[in-house]
């Protein structure tokens, strides 16, 4: 585990830069442009996990670190840890189909969990609707918005692999707070049950999904109010 800084075969350093689920303000974008020039960046690459790679000479790393921090961004992380959170273009500005604002939940998840040690790399993906543009069904922890603050959670997917695995639906109709609390519990169980360097899909296969499932009480506690919204509207509640 550590920072996403890699010495490449060509001798340059590849440095991953993370924003909140790939969102950049105009000031950050302009600042990155300046930073690329002042640090002698050869070129940049947007990655599949919504980070930005800067290819710089190794003696400019500290300048880049300072510049990135000054822009309110972070150097990425790598290894057996919770990675940065990937989110689709899911808000009312960016997508016609988004049912909620994925950047709020995605940002909170990233803030709280990114860089936390895990037995194997742990990837979180958030999508603003069931179409799942960010492949939440293939993430270790996949979240799909079904309303403004209502989500489905899929566990144990694996993408980017010769043996892709679809995650299993473990919770639905829960709110953002429930998504966060559930992840906390899952990471604890995963750490307790996993063998060294075991991806969560393999742990689930070995010990069973039941160990990871939230209780009925948990679901009831975090059930989204929105789910009752139509019932109230229709006079079906109570």
């Amino acid at each position, binding site marked *: 585990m550590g920072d996403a800084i890699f010495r490449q075969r060509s001798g340059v350093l590849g440095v991953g830069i993370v924003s909140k689920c790939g969102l950049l303000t105009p000031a950050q974008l302009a600042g990155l442009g300046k930073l690329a020039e002042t640090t002698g960046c050869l070129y940049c690459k947007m990655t599949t996990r919504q980070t930005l790679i800067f290819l710089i000479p190794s003696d400019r790393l500290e300048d880049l670190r300072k510049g990135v921090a000054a822009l309110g961004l972070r150097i990425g992380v790598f290894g057996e840890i919770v990675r940065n959170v990937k989110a689709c273009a899911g808000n009312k500005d960016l997508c*016609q*189909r*988004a*049912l909620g604002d994925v950047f709020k939940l995605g940002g909170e998840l990233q803030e709280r969990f990114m860089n936390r040690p895990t037995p194997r790399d742990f990837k979180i993906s958030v999508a603003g*609707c*069931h*179409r799942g543009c960010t492949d939440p069904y293939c993430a270790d922890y996949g979240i799909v918005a*079904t*309303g403004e603050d*209502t989500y489905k959670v899929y566990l144990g997917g694996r993408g980017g692999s010769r043996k892709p695995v679809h995650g299993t639906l473990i919770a639905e*109709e829960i709110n953002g707070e429930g998504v966060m609390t559930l992840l906390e519990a899952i990471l604890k169980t995963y750490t307790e049950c996993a063998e060294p360097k075991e991806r969560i899909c393999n742990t689930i296969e070995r010990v069973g999904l039941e160990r990871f499932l939230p209780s009925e009480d948990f679901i009831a506690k975090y059930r989204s109010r*929105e*789910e*009752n*919204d*139509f*019932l109230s*509207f*229709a*006079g*079906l509640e109570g």
Partner: protein
Amino acid sequence: MAARDVNLEKIRAAVDRCCKTEAECNKCEKVGCLIGYCQLALDYSRQKHSFRIPGGTRHIPRRDFKAYYQSDLLLALAEVLLQCQGCRDNHEEECVINVTRSALELALLGETIDYEGSALLYLMQVNRINPDIGKELMQFYEKNKPGRIPEA
């Protein structure tokens, strides 16, 4: 589901024609009535600017056995099918169009059919289950298709 071209007002108008009114029912059951339920779902969608009806399919009143006027149901169902965005694999059960379709289908056929996110596939399914209704539904669908030149 937040499709750009869905005209909920047009569906609502077609559904309203199916309402038997208090003159026939004595008292409006609203949520206990398949047509009243469609109206509620459509109103919710318009008011909340959301195409998703949370719990919408679960609460469809399956015990409404009223006999509706078939031609009105066919017209409303055809309108719903014309507004369907054809999401196919991305079909969502709680989409307002699907909720409305399911309720109208119950009123018309007395049973529900799995919807595969395509109006044409659905028309073929209805035709298999009930060829008479299937044929009529197809005629209504074709007749109201946008771009069709009205008969003289």
